[in-house]
């Protein structure tokens, strides 16, 4: 349980470092790196939440497991970038491709609580 709180705290810290940009702003490596860190932390968090759900309810949700598996697998492709390194579209897209199954898993878990 504490790990969940720690992870949420980590997420809060990461989100606090995120900035909003406007047209013409420089794209920094930290912008995409913060998203990547957030995503990887979210993967760990959803796994912890699902474990908590299973321990609490005693139910296993294959769909959620599948979502988590997908998110975990995709997160493995996430790599932080260095300054002056080319930022590929995959850096942007993989973040949301990973966060989406996490969101679906959260919804599914919330339904079954």
């Amino acid at each position, binding site marked *: 349980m504490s790990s969940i709180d720690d992870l949420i705290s980590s997420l809060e810290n990461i*989100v606090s470092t995120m900035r909003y940009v406007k047209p013409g702003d420089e794209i920094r490596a930290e912008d995409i790196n913060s998203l990547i860190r957030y995503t990887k932390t979210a993967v760990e968090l959803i796994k912890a939440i699902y474990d908590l759900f299973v321990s609490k309810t005693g139910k296993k949700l294959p769909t959620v497991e599948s*979502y988590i598996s*997908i998110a975990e697998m995709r997160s493995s492709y996430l790599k932080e970038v260095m300054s002056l390194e080319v930022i590929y579209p995959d850096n942007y*897209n993989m973040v949301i491709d990973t966060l989406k199954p996490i969101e679906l898993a959260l919804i599914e878990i919330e339904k079954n609580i």
Partner: protein
Amino acid sequence: MSFTSAALAKNLLLKSSVGRRYVSNISDLSRSADFIRRLPTKKLIEAYRGTDNISRRLTLYKSFTDTSRNLDSIARQIQLSKTKDSSKALDALRKSPLKVQLDLIKGIDQTALIKAYVLAIKDVQLGDSYPIAVRGKLLVDSFRVLDALRRSIGKRLADLSKTADVLLRQAKLYRIFSDLSISSDRISRQARFLRSPIEVLRTLDQYTRVASYIRSVSDISRSSDILAKQLRLFSPFHDSIKASDAASRKLQSKRDIVDYILGDYAFTSQLVFMRRIYDYSKLIDALAKTASYTRTVGDSVLLQEKISRIAALIRAFTDAASVKERFYESASFIRTMSDVLLGDFSLIKSRIKTISDSIAIYDSAYRNLMKTPIDLMRVLESIEALRTAMVVLRDTIMGDFLEYSITIKNIRETIAAREIVRRTLTMYPKELIRVLEATEAFKTAFVTLRDSVIGVFDISKSLSAGIVDQAEVSDIATKIAYILAGIPVRRVYTFPQKLIALVDTVQSSDHNTRVDSCKNLLEMFKRVRDKLKQ
């Protein structure tokens, strides 16, 4: 001596104051003068006579020239006299006035000589005595008269000449006319003479043509009659031929059926005959057929192996895509897309259209992926049935050959097996072609999907082969926008320089929406955590 001359002489004698010696001269002169006086008078009388004669003739000819009748009259006269050469008359006519004129000119010349002589006398004697002057005056008067006559005659002669010229021209004209008339008559007569043969020829020609036409018509009619008769004769033959053709076709069809039936019957009979008399030659034939079938089976098996290899390859891809991590991109991407979109559909109604499109794409891809294995399985089943039938056939015939114990059941099974073989062999190429095409299409689609997935997900671009296919799939995928934690987020893309027209720029909103989604997702984590804590 005339009165005038006597008076002159008397006066000369009485009134002359000249000497006597001149009297004789005067007397001589008077005689001479009297002679001289009479001389022109005579000439004048003769001239008058000639002039009258000419005048009358001129009057006659003038009257001729006044009216056209004169010309006709002359022409008639010329014709009546049968003078073919009218120039002779005209020449005579022309010569006549010329002769008169010539004579007149001669006379005038003589008169002029006389006049000159008289004048010479007058000049010499005029101043000597009055009577001479008087005589001279008379002479002058006479000369004047003579001159007038001369001019009158000259005028008449000129008119006569003109008339003659006119007559001559008219005569020439008439002659021309006459000649023309003669020629015309001749031509006319000749024309009439010629026209008749021409007309005859024309008529004959026309008759000939008409006759030819009639003959042609007649021939045509005869030909038509002959043709009609031939057609009437030919029609039954034609109908017979038609009927024969139809019957032939029917017979051919029936014969095919009969042959087919007889073929089956023969095949069956062969087997029965084989069973009864153990005719090895028949068995050898059957074995030859069996060998052919066996070879076909062998080819089929080889083909089956090829298809099996293709199927195995496809199956390997499919299985790998669903199981192995190496093909995670294809399977997981599709499954995730489906799950995600289904999740979106349950949550966000506003994205229904995008989801529907995506599902349709997914369904289409799924069907394409599944169609080929299904077809492949059908063919494999057919090949398996073929192989089974071949085995049955081979075992049956070989069993007969080895054991000579064929039964009716074996025969039926053999026939049934042969039928299966026939149907399978007929079906097999079509199905094979269909499966090969589907396999190729599946392979293309799979490569496209694989490349696109690799291009989207894999950081390494070196594995991306189908650039164009990738662009197509990516373009389809650009329609897919995530609603992540209530925030629509857009996927972004880059394309190679070749597809610069499709280049996508990462917008500032793309980053900001992700930040918002992360914040919302964080709130969802907190909410679920709180629920689980309760």
